[in-house]
């Protein structure tokens, strides 16, 4: 227990942790403020204005259409006729359904529609921070020799590394829960002032909560993987290098190569696909090269659906491998 408190204290004392968390909070505040000003509440006045705008656009389109028809008729028999349909009755006739008031409404924040994306955005930002914090927490200790010093005090290596990781994960959990609560509150407020919370049933709140829990899982996994990689390489830079390497080689490189080779479902290699699948429960990958002729003469491409259990399983496997190797290496290596 004493080791655990010491490690928690160490994590909190690090200036790096503080700076990074400050940065994360600033970015989140900026997003929330941006969303506040980008949205407006629907009032009878805005609805009426949108309706008027839709009506006037419709009228303008009708006038334009009539004028076009006249020009078309006048052009019959001249070389200009090739610019017009053979029968001037085929000139586009606007319909009222083409000019709906909803399209002329200012953006409004529908909590049920839009908040899930905000959860994913926050989870992604906090997960990146967690990866870096986790990596530098143990990486700086290895690189500075602090780890060796600690092992002179507590010779049980697995216990030391495990306790460090535990302290990190508990701290990240606390942080993410706090941020999620603040995030939900902020957007509920934004929805109240600049949109609507109307469709939020208790079931909808429950699924929001579950999604936030999935976001927490992503944050914890990112922190543990960063920690594990830095511990394996005994340097923060190793974790960073692996992260950059994976993004550049596996994400962009492999994706571009697969796309150029016209391999179907190339997006399957993208982490974003799996992240979306995990957060939104499914993600659809489309093979744009394929074509299944459908009844109305169109072409529907093949689709591959990635489900959240698959995405979660992948994340868990990665986590187990990285943390497992980290624990195995600290057990067996000579510390010089």
């Amino acid at each position, binding site marked *: 227990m*004493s*080791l655990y*408190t*010491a*490690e928690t*204290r*160490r994590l909190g*004392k*690090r*200036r790096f942790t503080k700076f990074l968390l400050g940065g994360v909070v600033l970015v989140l505040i900026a997003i929330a403020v941006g969303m506040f000003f980008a949205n407006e509440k629907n009032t009878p006045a805005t609805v009426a204005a949108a309706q008027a705008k839709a009506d006037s656009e419709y009228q303008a389109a009708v006038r334009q259409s009539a004028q076009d028809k006249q020009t078309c008729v006048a052009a019959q028999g001249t070389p200009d006729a090739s610019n017009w349909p053979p029968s001037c009755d085929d000139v586009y006739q606007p319909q009222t359904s083409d000019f709906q008031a909803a399209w002329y409404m200012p953006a409004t924040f529908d909590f049920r529609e839009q908040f899930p994306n905000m959860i994913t955005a926050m989870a992604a930002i906090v997960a990146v921070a967690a990866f870096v914090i986790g990596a530098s927490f143990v990486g*700086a*200790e290895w690189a*500075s*020799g*602090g780890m*060796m*010093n*600690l*092992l*002179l*005090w*507590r*010779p*049980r290596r697995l216990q030391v590394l495990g306790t460090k990781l535990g302290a990190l994960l508990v701290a990240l959990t606390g942080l993410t829960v706090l941020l999620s609560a603040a995030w939900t509150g902020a957007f509920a407020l934004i929805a109240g002032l600049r949109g609507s919370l109307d469709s939020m049933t208790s079931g909808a709140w429950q699924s929001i909560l579950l999604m936030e829990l999935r976001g927490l899982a992503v944050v914890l996994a990112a922190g543990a993987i960063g920690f594990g990689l830095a511990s394996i390489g005994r340097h923060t830079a190793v974790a960073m290098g692996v992260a950059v390497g994976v993004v550049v080689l596996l994400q962009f490189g492999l994706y571009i190569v697969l796309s150029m080779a016209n391999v179907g479902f190339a997006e399957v290699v993208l982490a974003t696909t799996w992240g979306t699948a995990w957060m939104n429960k499914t993600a659809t990958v489309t093979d744009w090269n394929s074509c299944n002729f459908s009844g109305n003469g169109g072409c529907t491409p093949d689709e591959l659906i990635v489900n959240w259990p698959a995405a979660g399983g992948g994340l868990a496997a990665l986590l187990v491998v990285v943390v497992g190797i980290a624990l195995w290496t600290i057990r*067996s290596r*000579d*510390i*010089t």
Partner: protein
Amino acid sequence: MSAVLEIAGLQKTYRSRKGVRKALDGFDMVVEAGQVHGFLGPNGSGKTTTLRTLLGLIRPNGGRMAILGREVPQALPEVAGSVGAIVESPQFFGNFSAQDTLSLLADAGGVPRTRVFEVLELVGLRDRSKDRVKTYSLGMKQRLAVASALLKNPKLLILDEPANGLDPGGIREMRGLMAGLAESGMTVLLSSHILGEIQLICDSVTIIAAGRRVAAGSVAEVLATHASTSLRVRLEAVSDLTSSAAALRDAGAQVVVEPDHLMVSGLAQPSAVTRTLAERGVYVSELSPVTADLESVFLELTGTAPVEGSNRQVDQTVMAQAGGWGR
């Protein structure tokens, strides 16, 4: 007296892409309770390797070790609380202050935090304890390292080159500190290259070369058994030097001819010199024993005395064939 530290037949082979290197080759050591024990050896002879192995940082390939009567590394978690150690100028996380560094260690080891101030005072860092370690000088970092080793108030204190980077005052303070600690019953194992210092403060020493023990015992014993005490012999007439040297060699002595005197060793009694020379009608004007110090014993035992006109390489010691890269 009981042994606080026992090492027998310790083996350690480092493996790397270039091959294997035998850093320890059946090394033995015994440190008795309450002593200040010097651990001497040329660069690369295996001192740090021994201490790291003892502290569980690296895994030996063979041999037995015991601290306070308990087999290590198995019992290390239990004895770790009684062993304070610094291994080869330890580094600390540069952005923490000395006080933070020590209080985190104290927390991790279950030592009361008040002890942090005691040790900072003891090593003379009290007034700088709130500065970041990054801003410390080499000697200040070394003092912090010693403070971290003392934090547990250990029964066995292991210091690998603690004087590294200390100013003369600091070295003298360190000497006083160690004497005080030994007096209070602490056993100190001290590795150093400053032999004068070792001779001043150590009760006993172990000398290692190429991963093996070449001498051990109290300082006086080591000096007595291994120093071939020599005699400085001056003659009435300098012209007799060469012929006298030949005569002494015939009598079984090793003789070095210096410009105005002879250095004679290898004779049981100094009287053998006077007798031999008197028989030839040569008279001695000075006959004084030259006692060897630890340094010359060290150089002789480890075979690392500088030879004029050649640059000795680090692995050239008495047992050069034992070290070196091999397969």
